[in-house]
């Protein structure tokens, strides 16, 4: 009699999603908060004779920028870069073209984040990544590389939340998960995916 051994895939999804927990390292969220702080510091307050109607004009543009934050050990903890960054004082928002974030935490595989566009709200309360959003976590040991892709990702650094209502795909060597809508809570390390479709193929047969 054959074994009705369902070997539910879910536990391997749990393992994959363990990786998702590391997709959103606290550092990343801190990095984004720092971005706005760094902007504020480097932008002079608008001259007092500004006309009454504060138009949505940029006051600061950086081309090909890159900001590196070092850890206490002097090693780079994260690098935020982009092709172009435009800061608007009226709503204190920063728009970034081709944002890239590289997060390197000690003895953890690096995490790379990229998107076509990004927007950081006042004091990085909200960070939006748009178009070809991709979070990649390199493999380490027998854990293969894991990639999350979506069209839109909303990060809330202070609340340590990341969410999207768009289609999202999480993938590693032998598991693919599609969903429409995802919410990740970094504090509770709980990931919720809606309309989830998982495919798990054991890498080595058995």
């Amino acid at each position, binding site marked *: 009699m054959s074994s*009705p051994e369902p070997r539910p895939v879910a536990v391997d999804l749990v393992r994959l999603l363990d990786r998702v927990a590391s997709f959103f390292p606290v550092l990343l969220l801190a990095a984004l908060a720092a971005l706005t702080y760094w902007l504020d510091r480097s932008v002079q307050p608008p001259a007092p004779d500004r006309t009454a109607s504060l138009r949505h004009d940029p006051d600061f543009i950086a081309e090909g920028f890159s900001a590196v934050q070092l850890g206490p050990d002097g090693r780079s903890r994260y690098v935020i870069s982009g092709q172009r960054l435009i800061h608007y004082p009226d709503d204190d928002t920063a728009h970034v073209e081709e944002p890239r974030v590289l997060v390197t935490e000690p003895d953890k595989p690096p995490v790379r984040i990229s998107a076509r566009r990004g927007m950081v709200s006042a004091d990085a309360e909200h960070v939006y990544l748009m178009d070809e959003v991709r979070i990649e976590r390199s493999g380490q040991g027998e854990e293969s590389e894991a990639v999350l892709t979506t069209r839109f990702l909303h990060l809330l650094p202070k609340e340590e939340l990341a969410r999207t209502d768009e289609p999202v795909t999480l993938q590693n060597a032998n598991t693919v998960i599609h969903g429409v809508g995802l919410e990740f809570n970094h504090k509770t390390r709980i990931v919720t995916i809606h309309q989830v479709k998982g495919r798990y193929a054991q890498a080595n047969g058995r």
Partner: protein
Amino acid sequence: QKPDREQPVYLEADTGTFDNAKKTAVFTGNVVLTQGTLTIRADRMVVTQDADGFQHGVAYGNPASFRQKREGTDEWIEGWAKRMEYNSRTETLELFEDARMRRGQDEVRGSYISYNAQTELFRVLGSGKEENARGGSSGRVRAVIQPKNREGADRASPSGGSGSGRSR
């Protein structure tokens, strides 16, 4: 046709919640898990992994169901229960509450059925509550075993209490 165990596993559900701290995954809403010929349908499925990596899955439904073709035969095994628990360490599938299992023409009902994939032994327990004799779930084991010309096929004992059957 590769055995089910070596087939990719597909799982769909309205929602999947993965708790990395507790290492559990909870799937809710139209949960369908397929692997080769095996299909499990449930309203809710909770999967946990113990320290040394053994998986324990619990499927809830009204009823939850499972269906699988026996390897190398074209005979199907089907099972229904309000709660089905699978433990990959012991390779045992346990059906609780209105448990029913059918293999080919044979069908067994009880309040609890456990089926061990390795030994191919299954145990059926009645709920022990005597209820009216006129039908209704009388809490006894009811087994319908079709006469077969296969020699040596043991019969599940239809008497009350526990019955166990071996199949080859």
